[in-house]
């Protein structure tokens, strides 16, 4: 019973003082004077606004990365009691007293400090000596760029932390694989690998590279496991399933979790609403939800609706019409139908209301009970304020013998269309431009070298997109141009063919019955006569699905007044109602994810932007902050000695690896098998980590900065002591050589320390240097160190 008392309870603690001391120094170096400078430093201006959004619970959308990183930063703000009230608009602006600078910067600094002991552990797990491990930690410690980046409210150090954590836990896992598979620590490290990978991806999309690297190494190991015939089939299957669960399923779930938390946290409508669909906006508190609450769900004959274009580019807008007509003749000599304009208008307006009418009946009110409109039904759309029908005109071809005077003069030139000025009208090619016989329209569609011809014999071309039909509201001029105002409803996201047209949820296409043209937003801005609203056209050559052809009902109510006057009053009155419609999490996640991946930032050049080639040689720098009065400044600059030697080490590693590999192929084994495997694994993780975090940037089109290189650099620094130790072991056979080599290494390290110390004022920004001292620090012409002129 009391057997467990027979042995005393003993706690043994192995404390590696190396690690403790290194961690302490790292914490000191990262946390020292963390709240200085009390001003917005460089990209803090960017991340800060998202922190404010979190604090105020306002929805936002950032295309640069998933929300986990932003959430972590916001956690600092939450713990520090930040209320979100700060205007992040200018680098260098002083923080007001309500901004808890220290706690906001704490998390990046902590993760940055933890890189040091983690580097130590990784080298140890890779099978290198304590000496090499200490070296790696020391190098991490004095890398100026890492220090600068982790002392500010930025995400790089968090990303590097998770990258290294993923590698470290995978190594721990694969080392325990040999001894005790399926033990508790085995499971722990395996799971942690998956979690760390997903966190890295969650902080920035670049984390995917490290994730893929870990996955590759894991699958190579798994492949060896499959080939291990000492294990039974069942056991191999268990191994594979455990890995799949931890490395594939857990990251996917975690990723969803980030978005779940994100969407729970930011539930209020805000400035980024407009990018999202109506359904999404309606799920946010305030904003659109206030208007659409309690709308009837099913659109019926007689419903009054506003139609929003789903594509929403260049700006989100609603189908609109107003009293003005298309000009009789455009600038380029073409003619129009001279009917009422139909446009897309980016603002809410009473002219955005349309009434859905049954072609067979005259009523513009909803019957009781309402008759819902279904997929495939033919409807007419009546503009609420002017009671005119949405229409796309077709000119009837004059019968032989009828004088063309029966058409208005403008219509004669409908299809005559002059080649746009100087686009491709070369004097040598006179036939390809100029006036054409009636009906032939030539335009360039495919690309600058290709011409395509349309025969547009009967249709009135749209004002700016001549290959599409004009859309208008029909005005009966009593000429040979009959109204053609029947539209067939095509619900794109229908589940069955009898689906009812639903407010907000249904995405519909309106297909013109006579011509099968599809109502489409062309994206072009009309000239002055169209009040610079967006052009709406009937697309005849509709090839497949495009969001610009899809519309959804945003505001909706059942029409009650048959009389025009009453109806106008009704239209002017605000929409009633109250009950919110909830969108499922997956639908919101998918939409948000899609928008994040497709939203484009068009800033492509920045004063401090650089190309990936500049990074390896440290040919660039970024001025982060300058003291308003003195010339104290924070500058992102790497420790030149470390950068140079890390680059060199990578090169040496690659050459040595190739050399060994070729020799092994010829049957010469320079290294014993286990040390070869260790050497290869170190290369796969460290040199591979550097490559996967660096090479993809050559293919990216976004603006790149020096700090994008830091994750790659962290891996490169890990490789450096590994290569040094290997060289030491291989080259130095005699004790004399050995001590010589150690001496060289120590000299080299003190050199790096010296550089660190010299650049320290620019890293911490705490000391104002004189112009001559600053000039002396400008080792490369391309470093933009700021020098005040007094």
């Amino acid at each position, binding site marked *: 019973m009391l057997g467990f008392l027979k042995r005393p309870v003993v706690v043994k603690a192995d404390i590696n003082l190396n690690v403790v001391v290194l961690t302490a120094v790292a914490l000191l170096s990262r946390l020292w004077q963390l709240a200085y400078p009390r001003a917005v430093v460089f990209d803090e201006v960017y991340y800060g606004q998202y922190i404010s959004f979190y604090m105020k619970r306002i929805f936002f959308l950032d295309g640069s990365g998933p929300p986990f990183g932003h959430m972590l930063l916001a956690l600092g703000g939450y713990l520090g009691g930040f209320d979100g009230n700060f205007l992040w608009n200018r680098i260098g602006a002083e923080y007001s007293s309500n901004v808890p600078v220290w706690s906001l910067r704490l998390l990046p600094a902590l993760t940055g400090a933890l890189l040091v002991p983690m580097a130590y552990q990784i080298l140890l797990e890779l099978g290198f000596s304590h000496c090499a491990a200490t070296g790696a930690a020391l190098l991490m410690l004095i890398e100026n760029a890492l220090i600068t980046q982790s002392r500010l409210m930025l995400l790089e150090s968090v990303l590097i932390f998770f990258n290294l954590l993923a590698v470290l836990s995978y190594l721990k896992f694969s080392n325990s694989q040999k001894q005790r598979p399926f033990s508790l620590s085995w499971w722990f490290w395996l799971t942690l690998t998956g979690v760390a990978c997903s966190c890295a991806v969650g902080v920035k999309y670049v984390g995917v590279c490290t994730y893929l690297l870990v996955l590759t190494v894991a699958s190579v190991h798994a492949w060896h496991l499959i080939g291990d015939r000492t294990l039974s089939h069942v056991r191999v299957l268990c191994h594979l399933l455990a890995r799949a669960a931890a490395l594939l399923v857990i990251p996917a779930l975690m990723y969803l979790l980030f978005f779940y938390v994100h969407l729970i946290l930011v539930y209020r409508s805000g400035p980024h609403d407009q990018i999202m669909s109506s359904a999404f906006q309606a799920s946010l508190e305030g904003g659109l939800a206030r208007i659409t609450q309690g709308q009837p769900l099913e659109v019926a004959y007689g419903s009054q609706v506003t139609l929003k274009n789903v594509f929403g580019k260049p700006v989100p807008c609603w189908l609109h019409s107003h009293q003005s007509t298309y000009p009789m003749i455009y600038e380029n000599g073409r003619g129009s139908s001279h009917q009422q304009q139909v446009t897309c208008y980016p603002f809410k307006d009473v002219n955005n209301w349309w009434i859905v009418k049954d072609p067979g009946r005259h009523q513009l009110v909803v019957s009781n009970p309402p008759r819902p409109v279904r997929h495939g039904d033919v409807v007419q759309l009546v503009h609420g304020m002017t009671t005119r029908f949405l229409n796309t005109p077709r000119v009837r071809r004059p019968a032989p013998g009828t004088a063309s005077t029966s058409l208005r003069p403008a219509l004669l030139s409908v299809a005559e269309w002059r080649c746009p*000025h100087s686009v491709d009208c070369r004097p040598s090619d006179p036939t390809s431009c100029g006036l054409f016989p009636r009906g032939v329209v030539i335009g360039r569609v495919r690309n600058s070298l290709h011409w395509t*011809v349309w025969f547009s014999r009967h249709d009135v071309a749209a004002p700016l997109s001549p290959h599409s039909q004009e859309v208008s509201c029909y005005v009966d001029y009593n000429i040979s141009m009959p109204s053609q105002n029947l539209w067939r409803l095509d619900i794109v996201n229908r589940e069955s063919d009898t689906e009812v047209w639903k407010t907000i949820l249904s995405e519909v296409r309106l297909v013109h019955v006579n011509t099968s043209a599809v109502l489409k937003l062309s*994206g072009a801005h009309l000239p002055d006569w169209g009040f610079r609203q967006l052009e709406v056209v009937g697309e005849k050559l509709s090839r497949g699905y495009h969001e610009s052809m899809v519309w959804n009902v945003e505001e909706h109510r059942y029409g009650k007044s048959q009389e025009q006057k009453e109806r106008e009053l009704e239209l002017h009155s605000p929409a009633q109602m109250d009950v919110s419609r909830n969108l499922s999490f997956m639908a919101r996640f998918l939409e948000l994810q899609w928008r994040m991946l497709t939203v484009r930032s068009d800033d492509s050049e920045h004063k401090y932007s650089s190309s990936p080639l500049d990074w390896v040689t440290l040919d660039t720098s970024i001025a982060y902050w300058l003291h308003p009065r003195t010339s104290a400044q924070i500058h992102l600059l790497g420790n030149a000695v470390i950068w140079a030697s890390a680059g060199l080490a990578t090169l040496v590693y690659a050459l040595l690896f190739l050399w060994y590999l070729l020799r092994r192929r010829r049957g010469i084994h320079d290294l014993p098998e286990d040390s070869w495997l260790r050497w290869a694994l170190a290369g796969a993780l460290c040199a591979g980590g550097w490559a996967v975090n660096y090479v993809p940037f050559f293919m990216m089109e976004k603006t790149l900065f020096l700090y994008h290189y830091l994750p790659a650099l962290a891996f490169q620094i890990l490789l450096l002591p590994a290569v040094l130790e290997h060289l030491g072991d291989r080259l130095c056979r005699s004790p004399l050589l050995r001590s010589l080599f150690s001496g060289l290494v120590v000299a080299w390290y003190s050199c790096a320390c010296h550089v660190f110390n010299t650049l320290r004022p620019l890293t911490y920004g705490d000391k104002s240097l004189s112009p001559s001292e600053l000039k002396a620090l400008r080792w490369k012409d391309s470093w933009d160190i700021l020098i005040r002129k007094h």
Partner: protein
Amino acid sequence: MLCATSRLLAARTATALPAQPRGRGPGARCRRRELHFPGHPELPLGDFLAGRLPRSSVSAGRRAILRRGRMPPAVRGGPAGVELRPRRGRCGPQVTRAVGPDVAAEPTARSPKRPARGSRRFEAAGRWALLALVTLLAFATRFHRLDEPPHICWDETHFGKMGSYYINRTFFFDVHPPLGKMLIGLAGYLSGYDGTFLFQKPGDKYEHHNYMGMRGFCAFLGSLLVPFAYLTVLELSKSLPAALLTAALLTFDTGCLTLSQYILLDPILMFFIMAAMLSMVKYNSCADRPFSAPWWFWLSLTGINLAGALGVKFVGLFIILQVGWNTISDLWHLFGDLSLSVVTVGKHLTARILCLIVLPLTLYTATYAVHFMVLNKSGPGDGFFSSAFQARLSGNNLHNASIPEHLAYGSVITVKNVRMAMGYLHSHRHLYPEGIGARQQQVTTYLHKDYNNLWIIKKHNTNADPLDPSFPVEFVRHGDIIRLEHKETSRNLHSHYHEAPLTRKHYQVTGYGINGTGDSNDFWRIEVVNRKFGNRIKVLRSRIRLIHLVTGCVLGSSGKVLPKWGWEQLEVTCTPYLKETLNSIWNVEDHINPKLPNISLDVLQPTFPEILLESHMVMIRGNNGLKPKDNEFTSKPWHWPINYQGLRFSGINDTDFRVYLLGNPVVWWLNLLSIALYLLLGSIIAVAMQRGACLPAEVEGLSQVLLQGGGQLLLGWMLHYFPFFLMGRILYFHHYFPAMLFSSMLTGILWDTLLRLCAWSLASSSLARGIYAVGLLSLLLGTAYSFYLFHPLAYGMVGPLAQDPRSPMAGLRWLESWDF
């Protein structure tokens, strides 16, 4: 055939081995043994379909290693995969060494079973007959109704036109390398086409012009794809039914058929790709006799075809990657073969460098040399190239140029960006649209020669006409403050603190002022790069920079294409960052000043490497410039394998003669299914092997073919398909066709193997044979029947569109996205 004889040894040793691991039906095994005469199947033709086919002697040899490796129990515990690693084609000598003692017994074992000579000859004849049949069928389908429709279809308007340019020797510009168009031009020339047809737009009738030569040439190359695929599959799988199936898939594919019938680059490109693949495979199977005549022949033929593929379109790069990968793994195996000395490996390496790098590069360069030699007259492509380049072309105003040498006030000039393919500084009577900077006149760069490229150089402070004869000539000097007035619109080149339309960090450049009167924002300082202040500025040779006086920014072109409002010309900005890039350096090209004496300039003679480099830069830029526009529907790579949407080659309306490029859906969907099945089957087999499962010899042979041969084809498919996902340029359906060739070959191998496996798993041999034959026949007939259904797509349809129930094609519109 030469290389086949030595492989015989391998095959024989394989069969001579005493131990058989779980021989499935000893009868069948024996029969196989009898039949092993590589390269000469002994079976009567009818039996081919019955599945009793001679397997590859190479794979038989491989099997020999495997089996041997497995026999002694000691080897069993060794790491898996070591024995299974293919010794690519090196089996012959390897096995001979490996089985040393057995070799002696070999000839005796062979002699009694050698069949009669006459029978062998009969077999060879049968085989040739089959190849001839396949080829004939391919030619028949491709040449049937080749002259229809007698008008320009789709891109014939470009490539036919470019063929004419070669005949007329006028210079033009295209984004593709010249070989394909040169061949088209040659074919036209030889067939009597005189280059006078204008090829203006699709639908134009050819009338009396002779177009059949060019179409016939393309159809000829397109027809050859089928026998090439047939031979490739035969070489990879050693199975006639697989090869037949592949040939049937390609012959009866309406897409390949349509694409081969017109004056296009694709048949030429696919011809070279397939020829390269075939010669690579052939040379792989000659690997056991290195440095023999056929080895050299196939190796250098591979190199020649690579040059051809790259010379037609840059997509040819993918087949180069495939051959490169093949070569590297080949060398890697040679290098690991310790029986070869390092010197021998070095010889191998040199041979490959010579045939696969040096030879193709030389040929590729040679096509350019011919291209530049043939096109020596000025033509529509001039403006894309630098001033120096244009001086080569007769008829160009820079050819034997005679222009005033030094820039003077009052000169009318064109200013060209020094960066290749950026174009001339240009302006026109259109304003920047609302919301994009100030609403002033647009300034762009434009690649074509145009009157709107002309600018007048004026003093900044006076508006007097410098051409007034009473004023003396005053030269422009480095460091002068000048004003550039646009000749056509009389507006000044202007910049101000507004953001540029696309590059937001730069300043906008506009045309401003009325009749030359503007403000101080029109003043620019003209500087010559690397020259002293006060020097005169030379036409053509001086590299100048224009610095805006007020803001201090530099005039440059960002190279970005403006949207529709800017007519898709390139953006011009003023950059505040004074980085030294070619984008902000210009030179003066045309120069008109009646007051100055003309001087002949013969200085501009670029060397051939310079021309070569420049034309590549221009092509790459042109390719990148082919971007899809906003709101435009473009074909997406994922559309292609599922045959989602075709391309209209000719005709839209129900009265037109319509040709629609669409793959035969039966073939394409079978291909798609096959890739999925292949991945499944391949991974099952790979895992089974890695687990060390003992596969029966029969299955093991099949799985070797599947993994080796199929693997190469799968790689080819991936290389020709996946890179398109990364491409930013506009894409079309026909880009998928090279990949489709590979996937059809894979289908052939997969179904052959799959049916054999099915037949094998049903033990009874007669039943198995039946199943195999029925399966294969139904595939062949199904393909042929689907071709019967869909052939109007390729040979042309008239009458109501398929949406119309009256149309004969009405029931065949299986996807809504097909609009034929």
